[in-house]
């Protein structure tokens, strides 16, 4: 997993609440057995005028010019500004894979759906939760072309172009893993002895859990 330290990036504002995982990456793309290649299909139904299918070459598809990712000023954006309950819906990790593959490394919103939030950390994406009023303000500021933010994970702060610093909270373990780009399977396997000891005890106290 790619580590996350400090990101200075162009911000794309997606002004909709409850953006669900079906919108982030429609189901037909879930048929792929790979982790990459989803970027061209991110927000497919909003981004293109035709029906997207896996494997399609997107360069000549008719675009929905009004959609923000098709506007010249947001090309190269790496920070997505979003609204309440971003990522609700399914557990599909294809959603963070698509965001990452497109180039987003950070998503700022007043709230995220639990599973999606968790999935971001497994893929080197930093989801930042900020207060509603702050997000409102960032949406307003973002109307200026070329609006960029600096996101510093270690310092837990977002810096606006005017130099204002906004602090955010993040769970210590997740921060640690993201800063180091750590594989948490390897970390858990360091506890192999404890897992074995737990299993040994449970095989006696709740044997039916091991019989099927």
């Amino acid at each position, binding site marked *: 997993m790619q580590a996350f330290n400090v990101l200075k990036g162009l911000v794309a504002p997606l002004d909709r*609440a409850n953006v669900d995982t079906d919108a982030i990456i429609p*189901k037909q793309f879930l048929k792929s057995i790979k982790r990459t290649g989803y970027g061209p299909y991110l927000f497919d*139904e909003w981004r293109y005028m035709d*029906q997207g299918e896996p494997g399609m070459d997107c360069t000549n598809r008719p675009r929905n010019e009004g959609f923000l990712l098709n506007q010249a000023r947001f090309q190269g954006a790496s920070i997505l500004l979003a609204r309440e*309950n971003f990522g609700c819906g399914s*557990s599909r990790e294809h959603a963070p894979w698509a965001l990452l593959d497109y180039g987003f490394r950070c998503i700022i919103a007043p709230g995220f759906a639990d599973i999606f939030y968790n999935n971001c950390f497994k893929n080197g994406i930093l989801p930042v939760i900020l207060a509603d009023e702050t997000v409102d303000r960032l949406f307003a500021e973002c109307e200026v072309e070329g609006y960029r933010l600096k996101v510093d994970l270690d310092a837990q702060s977002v810096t606006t172009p005017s130099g204002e610093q906004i602090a955010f909270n993040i*769970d210590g*373990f997740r921060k640690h893993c993201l800063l180091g780009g750590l594989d948490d*399977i390897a970390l858990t396997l360091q506890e192999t002895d404890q897992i074995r000891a737990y299993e040994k005890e449970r095989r006696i106290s709740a044997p039916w859990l*091991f019989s099927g």
Partner: protein
Amino acid sequence: MAKTLFDKIWEQHVVSEHDDGSALLYIDRHLVHEVTSPQAFEGLRMSGRRPWRAASAVATPDHNIPTVDRERGIEDPVSRLQVETLDANCREFGITEFGMDDQRQGVVHVMGPEQGLTLPGMTVVCGDSHTSTHGAFGAMAMGIGTSEVEHVLATQCLIQKKPNQMRIVVDGVLPHGCTAKDMALFIIGRIGSAGGTGFAIEFAGSAVRNLSMEGRMTLCNMAIEAGARTGMVAVDDVTIDYVRGRPYAPAGEMWEHAEADWRNLHSDDGVAFDAELPLPASDITPQVTWGTSPEMVVPVTDSVPNPEYARDEVQKSGWQRAFEYMGLKPDTPITGIEVDKVFIGSCTNGRIEDLRAAAGIARGRKVAPNIRLALVVPGSGLVKAQAEAEGLDSIFTEAGFEWRDPGCSMCLAMNADRLEAGERCASTSNRNFEGRQGQGGRTHLVSPAMAAAAAIAGHFVDVREWK
């Protein structure tokens, strides 16, 4: 000290606790399907790892298998590859799979409980958000992403922070014509689609206790649509009676031991929750969603809301986008909305009781001429066989419904069953997101009886006025 049901299961599964308050939790049951597992198996292979306890995992393909002419195989090469990849991975890693030709195959959340793979007190995970379904058994069931699927395969554990806990208490008698689905939609309408975020929800109260296991599964299934990661119901006689005798349930002396243990799986008297919400069952009516989030829901007797009543600007613009997408005007009476297709099935409402409820409405009636397709898709091969043994299939086909093979089908339209752009559907599934049942398709979530009634009438009707 008084404990909640969730506390009890949590404590029994902590392998170790970390300084930051997270815990390594042991996972008892891992259900696997074709969509969210290939990259996890690939990860195992690349790192040279093997499953920690392959016997804890059971797989079945469900999301993109066909519901007709199954003997011809899967036509779509991309879908076929995904299902074949599951078969191959299960073979390679020694995981039990109920494949496409096995009668036990079905939607993973129907198959698991039916086989007794889901037991009270278990930690159950699956790479699917509707894993919350299994909480109906007094289990702690969580949907996980693919990285976590790999983590559980490799370590049998999951790193978790203990969530806050909410108890929703529905007391009283569920009115005639109302079901667990209406209860679930009613709750989501009240607390919103993010109302349960960060919470584990326990559903309690006499109206919940009076639900069958099927009803409890419907309710817990929809907990995720309220944003909660788990929903659960305490163990009682209904739970025990359902589990007894299932293929993977314990038997003999081990059953006695297990049952004694399970009888303790309820929240203790006087225990405090972080949030508590009492709801009188008598307030519940047949519910119909009108928009593109399950929280956009009203009683069937009501109308599409007027944006004047939106609580803020964000909600107002969300509603406006939903009116446009759904092709509806504010203040339109729900019963005046005509539908094009009807879907009865899914992990929410694809169980035998759901099919009985729908057949009860369909019996001796005919699907309205404006309905292009009315699909009944059993949740599993065993549900299908049971329904056929009861003659439900002929009730449906005589009324003009199509009787299909089990799978997720039009719940998410990964196979050939889907809505065309602009088509409107009465669906017993759980999500009405934009494009969920096909690009441009318009979904209204309802109970099985309400869906069947909409098929017969050609538009939404209040099922309480029937029979």
